[in-house]
């Protein structure tokens, strides 16, 4: 399974979505396989049970599917290498329907009924926010992969962690130096008129200011809008960069109409891949994006200089060079976010092993061991790149990618530094009682 560099090479094995979900049955089967790493170090070979709060249905289902694929691949890789502390890992999936109230029920169910060791995997912010109190009440560590600033804001509780994906505040802030230096000094923001857009509205201007650039206009678009031409005259003529973060089904229409408005003479365009996750950038209507730039968490397209770890990760999850499912080229992944599932599971492994975790009675020790983590080196466990972790705010900080749309692909032209995205901690979870 490991190549000469010591990286997991799963490209030659067939990983189906079910493989890692077989749980106990699969764990037992693997343990008997000849030549397989035996779970010998463990006092108990009972599996570590990870409750996967999954957006299987509801508005988040497209993301949920890829989160599930990535998590299943990570669990397989972890199990193939001996599991956590010598014990196999089992994912127990419960669907939260992308529904905050249901999310809270699911967390309680994991704690009380399935008795999982932790809860993991939530993406949508409102589900995280709705579920976090249940994690706190049940004193069960809750590892989310949401990118929201809610964990780092320290307004949740001590049991909630986001160690596998940088939060949106840090992402936005780290875009500023590059935008100011390379795209332009006069920036107009176009964003949907609700919380998601407000993150960009609030965090970008001060970050740009610090690098000598200015937001000269902010255009908030009502979320139910499906035609945008009437808003474009509000873009000041001197605009050098349009910073756009539209989301929802009307994104294609937005880009198309922006193209019709500007023709070939346009300012620089800078967007966030959140707008086009799981969507082919070569779709009709998106032609206008050619030559524009995007934030990407982890690159969708394979890059010429991809590390061996990145290659192994892509092969393990089953995404091709265009970031779509191997064997199903129209099924475009959510590459900018789903790597966080992989990395979070490796953080859980590290923290459990550091804590000498044996079972639910050690959950408090697991919280403290996670808080004690400082940094994660780039490699098979963290293929997206190196990260630091702030145990006080339970949030990791990693590098971000800026990619240019070129020839129908996204080519990474800049990688930010971790320092670009650091900000002052807004609180300290470690002062809360366990």
């Amino acid at each position, binding site marked *: 399974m490991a190549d000469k560099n010591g990286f997991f090479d799963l490209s030659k094995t067939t990983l189906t979505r079910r493989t890692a*979900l077989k749980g106990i049955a*699969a764990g037992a089967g693997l343990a008997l396989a000849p030549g397989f790493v035996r779970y010998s170090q463990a006092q108990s070979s009972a599996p570590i049970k990870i409750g996967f709060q*999954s957006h299987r249905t509801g*508005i988040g289902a497209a993301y949920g599917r890829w989160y599930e694929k990535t998590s299943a691949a990570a669990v397989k890789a972890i199990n193939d290498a001996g599991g956590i502390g010598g014990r196999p890992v089992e994912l127990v*999936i419960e669907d939260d329907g992308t529904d905050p109230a249901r999310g809270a029920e699911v967390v309680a169910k994991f704690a009380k009924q399935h008795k999982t060791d932790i809860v993991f995997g939530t993406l949508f912010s409102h589900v995280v926010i709705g579920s976090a109190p249940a994690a706190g*009440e049940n004193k069960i560590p809750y590892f989310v992969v949401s990118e929201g600033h809610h964990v780092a804001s320290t307004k949740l509780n001590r049991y909630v962690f986001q160690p596998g994906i940088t939060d949106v505040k840090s992402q936005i802030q780290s875009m500023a130096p590059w935008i100011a230096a390379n795209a332009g000094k006069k920036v107009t923001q176009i964003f949907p008129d609700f919380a998601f857009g407000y*993150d960009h509205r609030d965090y970008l201007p001060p970050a740009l200011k610090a690098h000598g650039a200015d937001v000269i206009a902010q255009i908030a678009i009502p979320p139910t809008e499906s035609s945008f031409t009437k808003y474009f005259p509000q873009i000041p003529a001197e605009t050098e960069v349009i910073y756009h973060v539209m*989301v929802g089904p009307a994104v294609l229409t937005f880009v198309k109409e922006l193209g019709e408005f500007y023709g070939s003479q346009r300012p620089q365009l800078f967007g966030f891949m959140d707008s086009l996750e799981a969507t082919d950038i070569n779709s009709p209507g998106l032609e206008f994006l050619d030559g524009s730039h995007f934030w990407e968490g982890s690159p969708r397209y394979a890059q010429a200089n991809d590390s061996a770890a990145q290659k192994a990760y892509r092969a393990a999850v089953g995404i091709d060079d265009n970031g779509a499912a191997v064997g199903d080229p129209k*099924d475009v992944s959510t590459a900018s976010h789903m790597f966080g599932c992989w990395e979070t599971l490796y953080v859980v492994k590290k923290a459990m092993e550091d804590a000498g975790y044996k079972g639910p009675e050690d959950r408090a020790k697991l919280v403290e061991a996670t808080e004690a983590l400082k940094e994660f080196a780039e490699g098979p466990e963290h293929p997206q790149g190196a990260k630091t972790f702030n145990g006080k705010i339970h949030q990791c900080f990693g590098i971000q990618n800026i990619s240019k749309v070129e020839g129908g692909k996204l080519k990474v032209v800049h990688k930010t530094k971790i320092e670009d995205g650091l900000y002052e901690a807004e609180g300290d979870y470690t002062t809360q009682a366990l």
Partner: protein
Amino acid sequence: MKDHDAGVVLASATTLALLPTSAFAHASDRGHVLLLPTGYYIAGGALAVAVSFLVLALLPPAVLDNFWRRRLPLFTFGDAPRILISLISFAGFALLVAAGLFGSRDPLSNPLPLVVWTLLWAGFTLLQGVLGDLWSWLNPWYGPWRVASRVFALDTAKPPRLPSWLGYWPAFALFFAFAWFELIDPAPDDPARLAFAAGLYWLVSFTAMLAFGYDGWSRRGEFLTVFFSMVARFAPFERVDGRLGLCWPGAKLLAGEPLPQSGTAFLLLALSSVSFDGLSKTFFWLGLFGINPLEYPGRTALIGIGSFGLVLTFVLLAAVFALAVILGQRLAGDKHSFGEAAGLLVWSIVPIALAYHIAHYLTVLLVDGQYALVALSDPFALGWDLFGTANRMVEAGVVAGAQSAWWLWNIQAGVIIAGHVLAVLVAHGLAWRLHKQPSRAALSQLPLTLLMIAYTIFGLWLLATPTAG
């Protein structure tokens, strides 16, 4: 959760709702449809329905009637295997309920939700519409009922009758409960929850069948049988006295007896609930209640609005339908009672209901149908591979991207338009049964045709307008 705790959670959730959030409402496949010239399709669809009405008005009714009456006999077969098939179906159902209780918690890995919602509700309805009444053989009650009747020596020849004043109201109420569970309940896909609901429903229906006879309860109480047998009337297959024959699609609807008011209401509810499923996800509907579709709050938060909408769409459709029938009667100087006219003309709703069903569930069928194939091979998540499909790759890409969106849109629009054209055709034939004078028959159809044109526009708009998710 204790009430006190719930209060604390609610309070903290309210505070936290003010936190900045990330949103992932993605540029879904509806985004590609938004770029298609759907307006032309809507106009074209409305025109097609209107033109078919005009053409029919000009054709001599006898020509049409002769056309509809044509049958092509195929072969004869008996009812003997029916008990066995139903018993096998019951065994399968029992296994599925067990899988729901003890198998994977993941609704896309557990076969129960996939079979109930995808294969049975979305898929089997389509089969009934195409192949005829397979359900009367495949339902999981007939076989067990026959066995139980034999064991308990029940008098199956003369069971106590379900009071006739009840009409189809038991089926109506149960269908409403089913639609509510499917569309409004927070977690109808949850395997255990669904196992309880489906198991309980089987038991209640079985008990009712023991009490009122299989035919008595399944014709007016068991909503699936009522729904499926109505849909099967559209199919181009007919079986009379054991002999199977071919007929024109929809021809059997023309021979339908007038439904009582409760039966009329049932058919209209079947159409309105599928319509509401589409409507409830549109930006338009969510916007009416100040809900941001890009920050869709989840099903729990929408229980009140959803329940209201489910009732509202039924009431609106029933009112508009009744109005169209009354106006038609006035225009034609009709002497039939309103109930009789409505009960007969409502059969023309079947092709529309079927078309909505196909158009609405097409993508679900294409993707979740694949998950169902995988799950069925390993119903208890024990690593089995019963049918060799356990490791089959699920290709979600079949419905993704601009090209798929174009194909899907064209199929959906084609089905919606064809369904309405057929509905006009059926309504015309039914009207001729009420009015022997062709000009009166045509005149009586004018308001109903307007309703069908409006519903064509509505159906296409539902598929073209921005939606959440």
